[in-house]
């Protein structure tokens, strides 16, 4: 499937943990302003793929190009400075710090204090609940509110691409729908791209422009959002 205005292109990605190879010649790309989903069974390599793109997990081979720049092997602070954010699935915030402190840490690479203050105000406008509870410890927020905070932290660097690992994890079904609507709205409003890993396929395909299916570390399907929304045989693909 051909995508114009590529902002992120990961090609021939191989990687894993020690001798255990998890990713096998994976090729994926994300266009400017596009929401791309990756789904697959447990252990298919989805999280490893996101971590490899972001530079947390070293590759054994392959290349990651972001905004026409080869960022393979870059550390996370460099990749973040270029405009990529990563929100992990598990504990995507600092529970012992307040909401404001979490947002400040989200902007760790930003040095201009007034800019940080402006962005905190902007995030709080998007998520009013965070403004109401600004001095509360993040660990005391509900699951859905914690997700909002983690998205807010990602927004603090005004990313061109957000990598989101299972944003539906740990939140109630009703809040899942809302969270995905927020992600879609943010992407449209900010002109951001999103690369989304998700187990909850039905919720994910409602907002994605394109979907990849990963099985045993290999891409076995790539299709448009429209086609994926019509698909009923997801389990056979997994």
């Amino acid at each position, binding site marked *: 499937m051909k995508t114009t205005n590529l902002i992120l292109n990961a090609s021939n990605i191989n990687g894993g943990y020690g001798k255990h190879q998890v990713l096998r010649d994976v090729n994926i790309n994300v266009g400017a302003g596009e929401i791309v989903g990756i789904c697959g069974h447990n252990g298919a390599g989805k999280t490893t793929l996101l971590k490899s793109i972001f530079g*947390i997990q070293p590759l054994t081979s392959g290349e990651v190009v972001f905004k026409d720049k080869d960022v393979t092997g870059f550390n996370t602070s460099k990749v973040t400075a270029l405009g990529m*954010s990563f929100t992990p699935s598990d504990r995507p915030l600092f529970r012992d710090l307040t909401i404001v402190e979490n947002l*400040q*840490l989200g902007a760790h690479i930003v040095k201009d204090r007034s800019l940080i203050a402006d962005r905190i105000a902007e995030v709080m406008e998007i998520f009013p609940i965070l403004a109401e509870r600004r001095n509360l410890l993040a660990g005391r927020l509900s699951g859905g509110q914690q997700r909002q905070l983690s998205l807010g932290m990602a927004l603090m660097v005004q990313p061109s691409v957000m990598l989101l690992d299972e944003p539906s994890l740990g939140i109630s079904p009703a809040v899942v729908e809302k969270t995905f609507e927020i992600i879609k709205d943010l992407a449209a409003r900010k002109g951001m791209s999103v690369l989304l890993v998700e187990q909850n396929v039905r919720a994910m395909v409602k907002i994605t422009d394109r979907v990849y299916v990963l099985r045993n570390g290999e891409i076995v399907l790539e299709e448009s959002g429209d086609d994926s929304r019509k698909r009923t045989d997801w389990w056979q693909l997994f």
Partner: protein
Amino acid sequence: MNFDLVAQLAISGLVIGSLYALLGVSFGLVYQTSKIFHLAGAIPFAAAGYAAVWAAKSLQLSIWLSIFIGLAAAVIIGVLILVLGYFPLIKKKATLLSLFLISLGLSVAFPNLLQIVFGVDNLPLEVYDAEGNPAVPFANPTYASGFLTITKLNIVQVVSSWLLVIAVLYTIKKTALGRSITALRTNPAMASAVGINNKVVYLVVFSVSSFLMGVAGILITLQFVANPTMGLQWTLIGFIAVFFGGITSLGGSALGGLILGLLSSLSGIWLGSQYAPIVTFAILFLTLLIRPQGLFGKEAI
């Protein structure tokens, strides 16, 4: 009860407790950030004392330059332990036990190295006047009131220890560096995700911790002497202070050090000073038994 004795022991306890507080914060800072049980913190402690003694004696430098060289030695050796000892193991995903064993090995081997280079003698930190006469810095004046005495050095020890402890606590609570340390301590994966460079934070933390160890090493060498086993002997009590105060709380570690110093000193009312180490370890044992999270901590190790 002899109240003059109690007051004098309380003053001694305050002095020694302040030094324990400094050691406790130094150890707690490394442990909280990296989870490494950094016994090798004893090395910058001893290195600072020996380097200052060497600078004062062999180079005939002033006390301030000697202290500067001692502190520089502490920071350099502390960073070398991290870069050459811990980083390669962390890269290989070594367990915390492996890191502890390396730390233990280094802290046991270093006194032998000191013996080889400087001999087994006790070395006082003295400066020399133009005629070559030695003098112990900060020894005078001594302030006395009735039976109570306190030296200028004691005041320097208490004031500098608490100024440094407060500076570290303020940095952790109020600055971007402090937030990075807290982030790394509570959620290393997320710290990496927001672009915090773990290596840089570790370098800063080990530098600061080694500096604090160095200050404690020099303050103790000024009062006593430098000897090859001084590192482990003192820093082990600093570690006890951390567990007594609470490993999850740096402020608690500092207060733990102070209380430990006061208790071990005041135990002299009933027991001789030779029992102070036994009292200290008894306090640790009872703490782990009754309140494993320490006096001010939230969770046990």
